[in-house]
């Protein structure tokens, strides 16, 4: 079978693409610094083509589940606990992804402030928002049989004041 040169190039590109998928799936980006032009080009092409993904879904295992609750204080002094649930089951899956970033200490301040701002927009007469993260600690099967049950452990909280959205109180890890 005679294959035109143009089509041979297509086979070559397909091969390169699949090799990139394999490399990135093997955590290629973590093998070393991605500062040289070749690595950077690979990375950019990877972002556009979707070949830069790692597929660590629920791997190597599952960790304790973070969750965030919001306490809203109004001008008249009364407080309300708010659970950001959105309007579809998909909202929960997506906001939980954001909550995952709160477990990274460097990003905690900015992500907490962003979420507080979003809650503040939905409760315009709120004066203060407390963003509190809790972690669901799940017992192992053996521990469950011994009577232990899933429990929520407080991790941290940050308070935000209306109009400033700067942290007015911050409590570090409560492990």
């Amino acid at each position, binding site marked *: *079978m005679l*294959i035109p040169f143009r*089509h041979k190039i*297509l*086979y070559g590109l*397909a091969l390169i*693409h*699949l090799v990139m*998928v*394999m490399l990135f*799936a*093997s955590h290629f980006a973590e093998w070393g610094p991605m500062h040289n032009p070749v690595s950077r080009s690979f990375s*950019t092409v990877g*972002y*556009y*083509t*979707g070949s830069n*993904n*790692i*597929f*660590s*879904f*629920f*791997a*190597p*295992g*599952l960790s304790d*589940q973070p*969750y965030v609750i919001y306490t809203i204080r109004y001008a008249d002094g009364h407080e309300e606990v708010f659970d950001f649930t*959105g*309007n*579809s*089951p*998909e*909202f*929960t*899956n*997506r*906001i*939980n*992804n*954001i909550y995952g*970033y709160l477990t990274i200490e460097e*990003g905690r301040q*900015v*992500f907490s402030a*962003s*979420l507080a*701002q*979003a809650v503040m*927009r939905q409760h315009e007469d709120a004066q203060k928002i407390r963003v509190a993260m809790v972690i*669901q600690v*799940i017992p*192992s*099967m*053996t521990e*469950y*049989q011994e009577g232990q049950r*899933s429990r929520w452990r407080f991790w941290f909280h940050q308070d935000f004041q209306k109009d400033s959205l700067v942290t007015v109180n911050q409590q570090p890890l409560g492990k």
Partner: protein
Amino acid sequence: MISRLRSYFFDAVPVETLGVFRIGIAGFAIIQLAFLSPDWLLFFGPEGLIPWDVSEVLSTTHTPSLKDVTSLFFISPYTSVYLVTILYVFSLAGLLIGFWSRTMGILAWLTHITLNTTGHFSAYGVETFTHISLFYCAVLPVGASLSLDHRRGKYNHVSSYLITLSVRMLQLHLCIVYFSTGLEKAMGEQWWNGEAIWMALQQDQFRQIDTGWLARVPWLPQLLGLGTLLFEIAYPFAIHWSRTKKIWLCGIAGMHVFIATFMGLYLFGGLMILLNIAAFGEHVFPGIFSQNRLMTSLRARLRVPTPLPDTYRD
């Protein structure tokens, strides 16, 4: 070995696989958009859960964002959200019916990248696979079957071996995905002793029904954990072997049904089942896309010729 490889990459495969893939992905993305639409501005709006000022600064992807669209066209942030969303819906609709499939595929892929760059902090696995799929819709001849383009004769010149190459890319990409995710799971203890299944079912985030009774039968979650490892790691080999391919396709689909049902990841589970059926349905159940009544009816309407078996069509 070489002749088998040659046969794998060059022998003709039914072109309907690409048509089913295109229709499935476009249909899925439209459903996903409908699911997300009540909270659309929270995910992608300039003052959403993560404001643009934050997502822009923290983005490392070098891909276009909604803020870039705002700057490029001198329009307001909200206008750019609506504009890109409308273009996304329009391109998906075009892709669904196979009208200007290549152009619509490129547009859907670019608009999805733009939305996803802005909303990437809330994106999870389902967006990863939507992005990958839309990229394939942009570069592969997905309009070659079950499309208005085919009816208009736009894909008559596509060589059969390029159809084969396209189908093999979808299949091999899935093989890499399952093999690598299986290996990564195998590196942890939780999947070997069943604790991963137990923990997943106990998480409030995913908890759909009471599954505390599983602790009394630990062999069951362990069996499910080991089964997951087996089905994922062996996927590239078992899905291609004639004796196991049916079991593997049904097993993987069953695994995703389990994930969707018990963990509430309906869209993710649905997309993965769709990708598996689109990529391997015809391979595992020959004729499923080309001979059943629905396809016969569609073919009659779109005037798709019957595929030639085991011969090159050009």
